[in-house]
C-alpha cells in the first residue's frame, strides 16, 4: 500500500547543522529511510588515545538485538490524500543529530537506530588542561 503524492511548499528553511546519519528531506519518498549511528564517547583526563582502543565488538550494547515491534493490529487502513498540498511558512532548526530525520512530504517506512556508550576515564594525579566536569 503506497501513500498518495503531495506537493510540499516551504517558504524559508534555516538549519544550523545536520550531522551523524541525519537526513533532511523535502518532498515525497517511496522507500523510506534507514538511519544508523553508533557512537562511543570517551572522555579522558588526557587525550592519550590509540588506534582501535575501543572496538564496538567489546561492548554488548552494540550486539544486543533490536526490539521487534508488535505486529499490526486493528482494522485495515486506507489512506487518501489526493495531492492535498503541504504549505509551511518558516522553519528554523538549530540541530539535527544522531540518526534523526526531518521531512516535509509523504513517505516511509522510517527506521532509525542509535547506540551510544559514554565512558569517563579519570586518571588520578593528572590534571586536565581544560576543566572537565566528571559527573
Amino acid at each position, binding site marked *: 500500500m503506497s501513500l498518495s503524492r503531495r506537493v510540499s511548499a516551504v517558504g524559508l528553511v534555516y538549519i544550523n547543522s545536520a550531522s551523524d546519519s541525519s537526513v533532511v528531506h523535502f518532498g515525497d519518498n517511496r522507500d523510506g529511510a534507514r538511519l544508523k549511528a553508533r557512537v562511543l564517547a570517551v572522555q579522558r583526563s588526557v587525550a592519550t588515545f590509540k588506534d582501535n582502543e575501543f572496538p564496538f565488538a567489546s561492548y554488548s550494547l552494540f550486539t544486543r538485538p533490536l526490539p521487534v515491534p508488535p505486529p499490526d493490529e486493528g482494522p485495515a487502513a486506507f489512506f487518501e490524500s489526493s495531492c492535498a498540498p503541504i504549505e509551511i511558512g518558516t522553519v528554523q532548526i538549530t540541530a539535527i543529530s544522531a540518526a534523526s530525520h526531518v521531512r516535509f512530504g509523504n513517505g516511509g517506512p522510517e527506521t532509525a537506530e542509535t547506540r551510544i556508550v*559514554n565512558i569517563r576515564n579519570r586518571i588520578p594525579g593528572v590534571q586536565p588542561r581544560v576543566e572537565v566536569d566528571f559527573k
Partner: protein
Amino acid sequence: MKLGQMIVNNEPVRIGSIRVLGISSSSSMLVGDTQSMTLYSYFDTPPESVIIGPLAPLPDLPEENL
C-alpha cells in the same frame, strides 16, 4: 479478530512557522504522512563506565594478531 475498514482522508496541511532547538538520537520530525516509523535509541552509561584509575596502555599487539 478482524475489524472493519478505516479510510483516512489526508487533507491539506498549512503551517505558519516552526522553531525547533534540537532533534537527536533516532528522532523524527515529519510534516506529511507515513505508513510506519520504527525508531530505536540506546544510551549506555552504567556505573562501570566511569573508570578512575591509572592509565597503563597495553603494548601493541604483534603484527600477526591484528
